[in-house]
């Protein structure tokens, strides 16, 4: 086991080469050889099963059905998002999530119609982000089997959420274990379908998709924690502040 761990570690450049060292530390990937193996495993699985499934889902299931399934799955995530909004001491976001959940569950027929979206835009949130805002560092880059790019902080967040999410917990306690598995598969297919174009673009243009994904994931997570894109993007959670697509396209550059 120890030997396997050692074998899985990349060799750090010597301290006598400070620039190489800086580059190595910037990549933040001491377990790169191991991570690359997991990445390749995920990639083979993706090419053999997940991607074809996502493509069939996109090509054969009508847009309307997919849209409502996405709305339904998003609504199920609301309790977790709400708790994280609260943990981040962000009353505006928490209020928006709570409002959306009540409106969509009631008037949106159990969440299959995101009827609240036109007044209160959706935002996502997760425990990894909360921990980051609290000052917990990301730790070394980690590729998880099936789940893909991560790090100890975000992986811990995913684990706690999977355990504590009431939408999974309550049915499981009642003996309906399959509920969380079905939900997991649906969320996975939905997420992969949303990313079909993005991942195809990476495949088309990158000479090393592994490091491209690593870089994008780390920058994206960091920007969420620093709140940068939220500042540039009209901040979700404020009613009426987010310009509608139609209003935007009226503008003349």
């Amino acid at each position: 086991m120890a030997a396997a761990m050692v074998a899985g570690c990349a060799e750090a450049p010597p301290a006598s080469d400070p620039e190489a060292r800086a580059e190595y530390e910037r990549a933040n990937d001491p377990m790169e050889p191991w991570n690359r193996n997991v990445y390749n495993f995920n990639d083979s699985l993706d090419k053999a099963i997940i991607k074809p499934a996502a493509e069939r889902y996109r090509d054969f299931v009508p847009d309307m059905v997919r849209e409502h399934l996405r709305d339904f799955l998003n609504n199920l995530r609301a309790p977790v998002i709400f708790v994280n909004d609260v943990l981040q001491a962000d009353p505006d976001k928490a209020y928006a999530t709570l409002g959306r959940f009540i409106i969509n569950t009631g008037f949106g027929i159990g969440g299959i119609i995101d009827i609240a979206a036109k007044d209160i835009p959706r935002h996502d949130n997760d425990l990894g982000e909360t921990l980051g805002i609290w000052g917990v560092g990301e730790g070394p880059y980690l590729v998880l089997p099936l789940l893909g790019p991560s790090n100890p902080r975000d992986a811990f967040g995913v684990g706690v959420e999977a355990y504590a999410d009431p939408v999974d917990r309550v049915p499981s306690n009642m003996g309906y274990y399959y509920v969380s598995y079905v939900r997991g598969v649906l969320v996975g297919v939905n997420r992969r379908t949303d990313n079909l174009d993005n991942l195809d673009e990476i495949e088309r243009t990158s000479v090393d998709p592994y490091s491209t994904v690593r870089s994008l994931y780390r920058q994206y997570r960091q920007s969420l924690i620093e709140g940068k894109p939220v500042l540039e993007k009209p901040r979700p959670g404020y009613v009426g502040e987010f310009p509608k697509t139609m209003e935007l396209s009226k503008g003349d550059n």
Partner: protein
Amino acid sequence: MLVRRLFLSAGLFLSLTFLFPAPVHADADMTQAKDVVAKLSKQAIEVMTSKGVPDADRVERFRGLFISSVDLPTISRFVLGRHWKTASPEQQQDFMKLFEDMLVYTWAVRFKEANDQIVVLVNGTKPDGDQGVIVDSSIVRQGQDPVPVLWRMRLTEGTFRILDLLIEGTSMIVTYREEYASVINQNGGDVNALLDVLRKKTVAMAQQQNAGQAKAN
């Protein structure tokens, strides 16, 4: 008396302007930076979606547009990072050429697929250091949430050129730098290894582009 004061203040003003070169954040500069983005995205979509133009011409016209609006020398140096210094002048030249091809084929297809369905809206500008401006824009596609894109612009030779694109918090040039550093390091620090894979990749992308066009026609 009055005249003397006028001269004094004029002198003071002049010396101040020489001491501190004017920052580029005058309104006119902001507007110019904004116009570069608006014009580039508009023309790029026009060039790539215009009908009745041979495909090769289309890409070459896009290349011309691209080179005039992007600060390629600066970006190339940044992207190659510490390996720029160890690379020979020939390797540097090769890299710049290949990286240009990479960017051109990457973006030509994106603008082509954009069609008329896409609008780049410039929301505003803000200063970025002394010689730079960040242009804040949204890429709006039919039926999808707008994607916020920030363009880092820098004043070189009197015009604003693009230095970086920030899409949802990710920097284009930082991503390229890490990708290429990874390839070089995987090959024991050999810049030629990167040049080889880039050469293969850009050739493949050019062929793909032509194949896609042939199918479309």
